[in-house]
């Protein structure tokens, strides 16, 4: 079966340009091969600067790779046009870490959720209105929240809005770029539950970009470890996940303890 998205020998480098000229290009991704099949849930794990988010941005088509190609349902995304391009836009959606920065603060929640529906679906105004209410309920919010502004919601609620916006056009792949990292622990767990539920009911694949290996075990079937822009390990996730690559072992070793480890203090 053709994967939803595939990356072949993808490389990307950035260079900064300032008054004193252009810096030496810094390679952030080198020779990435990745296939994402329908319904898969993949964790993209790595420390800051490992290239996780850049790979996400390339898969979404926000940026072009310097070399190699990214294909949607078998066609390179640079070559998509017309209905095929709209199908790609509908099919691959993303949720970012900073929910407040990801929405227009002057737009109501209703308008924010209707936007992808206006551009990517054929629904008319009434149908969009009904769909927005249904989406809000799907992510555990109230239909009346559509009249609110982003600043009138908590961080957890607003991230639910961003998830609703991403699933609005019925994507086949949802990319979650550190989408729960800004939330407190109790909210993180609630969000993971919501995402599990949505993934099952909507039959989406999920690419879960994170640095927290603890979350990977709760949500993903496969983990890809990225370091210095290269894939170091690609392993199935089970209960007793043991990563073998050097970087994987470092990440696993950095997991915070479950139970108190500090030495006993003398009682004052």
């Amino acid at each position: 079966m053709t994967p939803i998205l595939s990356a072949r020998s993808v490389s990307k480098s950035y260079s900064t340009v300032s008054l004193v000229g252009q810096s030496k290009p810094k390679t952030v991704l080198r020779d990435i091969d990745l296939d994402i099949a329908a319904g898969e849930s993949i964790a993209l794990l790595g420390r800051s600067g490992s290239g996780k988010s850049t790979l996400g941005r390339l898969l979404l088509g926000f940026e072009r790779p310097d070399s190699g190609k990214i294909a949607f349902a078998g066609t390179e995304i640079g070559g998509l046009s017309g209905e095929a391009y709209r199908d790609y836009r509908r099919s691959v959606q993303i949720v970012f870490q900073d929910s407040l920065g990801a929405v227009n603060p002057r737009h109501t929640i209703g308008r924010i959720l209707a936007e992808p529906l206006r551009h990517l679906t054929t629904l008319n105004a009434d149908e969009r209105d009904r769909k927005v209410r249904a989406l809000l309920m799907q992510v555990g919010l109230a239909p009346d929240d559509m009249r609110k502004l982003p600043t009138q919601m908590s961080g957890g609620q607003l991230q639910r809005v961003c998830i609703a916006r991403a699933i609005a056009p019925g994507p086949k792949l949802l990319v979650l770029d550190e989408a729960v990292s800004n939330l407190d622990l109790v909210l993180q767990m609630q969000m993971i539950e919501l995402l599990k539920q949505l993934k099952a009911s909507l039959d989406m694949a999920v690419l879960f970009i994170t640095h927290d290996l603890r979350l990977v075990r709760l949500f993903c079937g496969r983990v890809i470890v990225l370091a210095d822009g290269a894939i170091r390990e690609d392993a199935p996730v089970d209960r007793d996940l043991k990563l073998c690559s050097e970087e994987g072992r470092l990440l696993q070793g950095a997991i915070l303890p479950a139970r108190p480890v500090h030495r006993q203090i003398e009682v004052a």
Partner: protein
Amino acid sequence: MTATLTIENLRIAARHGNHDHVLVDGVSLTIRRGRILALVGASGCGKSMTCSGAQGVLPPGVRVTHGEVLHDGKPIAPQKLRGHVVATILQNPRSAFNPVQTMADHARETLRAVDKLDAGWRSRTLDAFDTVGLEDSETVLRLHAFEMSGGMLQRAMIALALLSDAPFLFADEPTTDLDLIVQARILDLLDDLARRRNLGVLMITHDMGVVARLADEVAVMENGRIIEMASTRDIFDNPQRIATRELVEAHMALYPEVA
């Protein structure tokens, strides 16, 4: 020899029209030298507000309506407290630095604020950089924030906090924006410094993993009040309040192999 810092019955409110909206409601905490006290609770429960209120650096429109801070039992004004008695490290090192100043400028500014800027500033700053594991400290002095990684910046912020020689440290979510590997190193560093320098630490966090890693005692906050205070072990083994249980349960759910 200073031994304790006590926040007593702190009440913080924001003025909304003609009534007060209470954000922190009668919080009392005692931080002891050589101990790490974690202040935990959900987003918006008043953890950071407590920390800012005690130091007199609340945002506009928010004020302390009651309570005081005692240093070894004697009341101390917020401006005498910050920098001199309490050093602070913040969550987001990226925005905590002045973008147009070098690390040397920041060090001088920090020392000037506590009247300790003298000819020895440079060597003391280099020492502090070495202590927190910033390699090539001479170069670091010349760097701006944008030239450093998040982990380096957080180490620099800890170094600046150490420069003041304050006996107490307030750390507000000091590792939340860092990746796990950098987080583990920064927590090791804080733990080590607190023990070696006998610092009293108030550590604000929402991650019970951080608490498990280094806290001696835990205060749990909900809706502006402290609802439970106990040793770290008791909080994990025998939580008394629903909010505390929820925190511990959400945390333990991350460790299916332990539960």
